[in-house]
């Protein structure tokens, strides 16, 4: 018997709800043409939640066709910007109405604490959708005065049919980050979720239809990167691809996009430095530094995972960091009230992190805390602290994507900036100091797309997010994200320049 298009599920917190499992194309859930499916796991118990249909090339073709037709249909392409804004606001209202369901799904599918999923991730999606709804009718071209013989103006038009490939670390939130600016600017979308966490975006499909978006404007498909993702990135009727994930996959996407020179934005990895000067507020530096690496189980692209502490406060910082971690980083299953750190998302991630921990031990770093699995079931890892880490150690260079922090000391500002910048990545950075000049000076010199002064990972939907170097191309969030989904057409009206 083949998989139905929706299943009745009961979540670990007792919530009963209907989970769509089809591919969301043209406002309907359909089966994959070849009937392929994939399983998604509850990482706290290593149990299967459900199967979902997995898109392959033929399904991607169908989704692209639907998105293209929707893009050319006047009921999306010619509606008042105000109407686009209303649809997006309505979607935000529906996400707010179903906060408990969406929070439950993400906690179950990803493993993050329920309170974070429902009150932080879902909350940010609501605000972000409303924020971009507010931009929909404020997208201005310009008029440019070059003299009376010409009326020159620019039209800011949508890019067209956009493929969006999102990761598993913030399933619903990453969908929100992608959909917001793309919809506000009038594009149509094929969103491919991560195979590890397909569920919350499928539920969102119901809300997109309920909000009143015309069929084909947003299409949501579950699938594997190598099949569905590759098909989308290389499709010659897709005008743009946006990807968030590893740098390695980002590079593959970039190559695939070359087939029709499609517009590309990438949000890839990071090994972001966190610089703690001796004149910092140490207590706050410890708390933010902890959040900067231990939040979301360390599964954060912008995690400030390399901490450089000025030598005069080095040991004191490590001691406080260890204590703070012990108090705050309660490892438990996602639906427990005390949970700060849930499981890692999959066995594959779990194994990878364990391997880095072993490498760290064997390379000679000082293991200050953690380093072991927690319990025997579920992909739980102890929050792990390495100190006396040298810049050439693997654990200092490579992105671990787990609750593992590396700490080392520095002597001078000039030295630490050089060391912070000696990475192929450049996503974020944190600087802790109370000195005005130092703060702004270091912020200007560090190679990063985002710098937090006296905080870490303190993001906001209105502030641009993205990296330099191999951490990505382009920016998300804020009004900067709109540029990624817009193309500029210059129109010259000749008023009297006769030959």
């Amino acid at each position: 018997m083949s998989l139905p298009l929706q299943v009745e599920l009961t979540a670990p917190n007792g919530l009963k709800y209907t989970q769509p499992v089809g591919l969301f194309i043209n406002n309907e859930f359909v089966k994959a043409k070849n009937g392929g499916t994939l399983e998604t796991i509850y990482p706290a118990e290593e149990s299967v939640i459900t199967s979902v249909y997995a898109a392959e090339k033929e399904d991607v073709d169908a989704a692209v066709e639907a998105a293209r037709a929707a893009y050319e249909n006047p009921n999306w392409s010619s509606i008042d910007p105000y109407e686009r804004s209303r649809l997006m606001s309505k979607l935000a209202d529906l996400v707010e109405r179903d906060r408990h369901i969406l929070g439950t799904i993400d906690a179950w599918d990803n493993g993050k604490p329920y309170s974070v999923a429902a009150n932080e991730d879902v909350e940010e999606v609501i605000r972000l959708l409303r924020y971009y709804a507010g931009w929909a009718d404020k997208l201005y071209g310009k008029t440019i005065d070059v003299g009376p013989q010409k009326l020159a103006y620019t039209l800011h038009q949508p890019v067209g049919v956009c493929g969006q490939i999102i990761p598993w670390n913030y399933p619903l939130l990453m969908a929100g980050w992608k959909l917001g600016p793309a919809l506000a600017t009038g594009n149509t979308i094929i969103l491919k979720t991560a195979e590890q966490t397909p569920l919350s975006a499928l539920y969102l499909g119901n809300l997109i239809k309920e909000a009143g978006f015309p069929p084909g404007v947003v299409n949501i498909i579950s699938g594997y990167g190598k099949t569905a993702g590759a098909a989308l990135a290389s499709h010659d009727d897709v005008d743009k691809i946006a990807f968030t994930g590893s740098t390695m996959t980002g590079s593959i996407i970039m190559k695939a996009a070359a087939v029709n020179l499609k517009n590309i934005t990438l949000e890839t990895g990071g090994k972001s430095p966190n610089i703690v000067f001796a004149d910092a507020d140490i207590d706050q530096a410890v708390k933010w530094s902890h959040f900067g690496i231990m939040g979301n189980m360390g599964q954060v692209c912008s995690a400030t995972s390399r901490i450089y502490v000025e030598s005069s406060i080095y040991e004191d910082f490590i001691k406080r960091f260890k204590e703070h971690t012990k108090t705050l980083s309660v490892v438990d299953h996602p639906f427990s009230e005390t949970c700060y750190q849930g499981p890692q998302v999959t066995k594959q991630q779990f194994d990878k992190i364990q391997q880095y921990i072993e490498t760290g031990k064997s390379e000679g770093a000082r293991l200050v805390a953690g380093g072991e699995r927690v319990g025997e079931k579920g992909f739980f890892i102890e929050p792990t602290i390495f100190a006396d880490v040298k810049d050439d150690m693997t654990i200092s260079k490579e992105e671990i994507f787990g609750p593992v922090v590396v700490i080392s000391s520095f002597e001078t500002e000039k030295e630490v900036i050089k060391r912070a910048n000696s990475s192929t990545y450049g996503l974020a950075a944190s600087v802790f100091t109370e000195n005005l000049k130092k703060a702004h000076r270091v912020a200007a010199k560090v190679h990063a797309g985002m710098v937090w002064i006296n905080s870490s990972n303190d993001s906001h939907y209105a502030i641009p997010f993205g990296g330099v170097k191999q951490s990505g191309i382009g920016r998300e969030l804020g009004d900067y994200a709109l540029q990624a989904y817009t193309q500029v057409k210059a129109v010259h009206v000749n008023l009297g320049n006769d030959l």
Partner: protein
Amino acid sequence: MSLTQKIELPTVTYEQPLGLFINNEFVKGEKGQTIDVINPATEEVITKVHEATKEDVDRAVKVARETYNKVWKDTTANERGRLLFKLADLIERDLLILASIESLDNGKSISMAKGDVAAVAGCIRYYAGWADKIHGKVVETDAHKFNYTKIEPIGVVGQIIPWNFPLLMFAWKIGPALATGNTVVLKTAEQTPLSALYAAKLVKEAGFPAGVLNVLSGYGKTAGQAIAEHMDIDKIAFTGSTGVGREILKASANSNLKKVTLELGGKSPNVVFADADIEAAIDWANFGVFFNHGQTCCAGTRIFVQETIYDKFIETFKAKAEKNAVGDPFHDKTFQGPQVSKVQFDRIMGYIDQGKECGAKLVCGGGRKGDKGYFIEPTIFADCKADMTIMKEEIFGPVAAIAKFKDIDDLVHMANDTSYGLAAGVHTKDLKTAITVADKLKAGTVWINQYNALHHALPFGGYKESGIGRELGKAALANYTQVKTVSINLEGHPSGW
């Protein structure tokens, strides 16, 4: 006197607040005075509202200042936007009630009033969306400095609105002012105080903190003057006649130099070229002058028609105007209701008499319609000359003045020959004509092949004596913000010192 009254209308029965809305409460005026509210379709008194005098203005400003300092200044932009979105939802929920109040109080037809209220919700949503998008800049001057600008609210703003679009004018004012983080003391027109008071109830229901928005019914000479002269109001925005606009500017100069924006009168030209789509141009000319009973600051009241189509235009326009349905505001088919008050009625009839005596040709209308309610027939004068009173002064009623023109140069000269400069219309099929004439007209808005097509996203305001500043669009935000430059020295000593 009570603070509310139950009012029964053909469309709804509802509770009308009557008090002054200060600190999220409806209260009586300190002096206990009241204002009669008249139904212009029947000339009967609908109700009385409490009147704000100088003492009440002082009270409201005090509350607005304290709320600004203690609460609103530190409210996040996201929260301000959220409250405005909520207010728009509530206005939409109570659309029929608000539209009915407008028809009752102002006399406009119920269908026009519904259009107004829908535009009110749209305008407030538009500004709600701006709240968290007000960006300063970072400006590089040299390597040792970090310079940024911060766009801040002004503080406590006074707003005085007119009677021609009571609730819409309310929205145009509070939208940008609240989105940018100011607190407000708003005085309605004494002729039309009712809809803003009902909206104030919704402001409280939406969850705005007490004191953010205060709504006062009152007279210009007392409450309005008190606002214009107040030493603790940081900015005043006024929409109304040019004459009163001058007084407001003077009052600012004589008090604390509060920032002033003004939206005043107009005598806007509506130009029809021979190559226009004539049928459409006539429809737009009709709408341009007779919409809202001619009570529109941007009305196309001087219609210029190219000489080769002049006679035909007038004949067809006359036929169209004579078909405009004039009557009961609560009737679905009504296009034109009564003028808002006896004072306005008498004034317009005075201008019509002058028009009859000055040598212009009366094409149609020219009289009162019926004998109850301030109804005036749609009136057209042709063969008008620039020196006629009816071509120079703003009549603010259903009276069109038509003149002929030869070519573009002739037209531009005549159209710009006015101390006003609010709007203009141009009807033509030719690409170059449209753009070059739009370039040459001294008007804040030029409509091409349409008229009175206002939209909350498009800046609106006057050249010359039609006003100072622009409302609507992103431009309105500048009226309610001030720029602070912060320049941080990162190195270095003053050179040589």
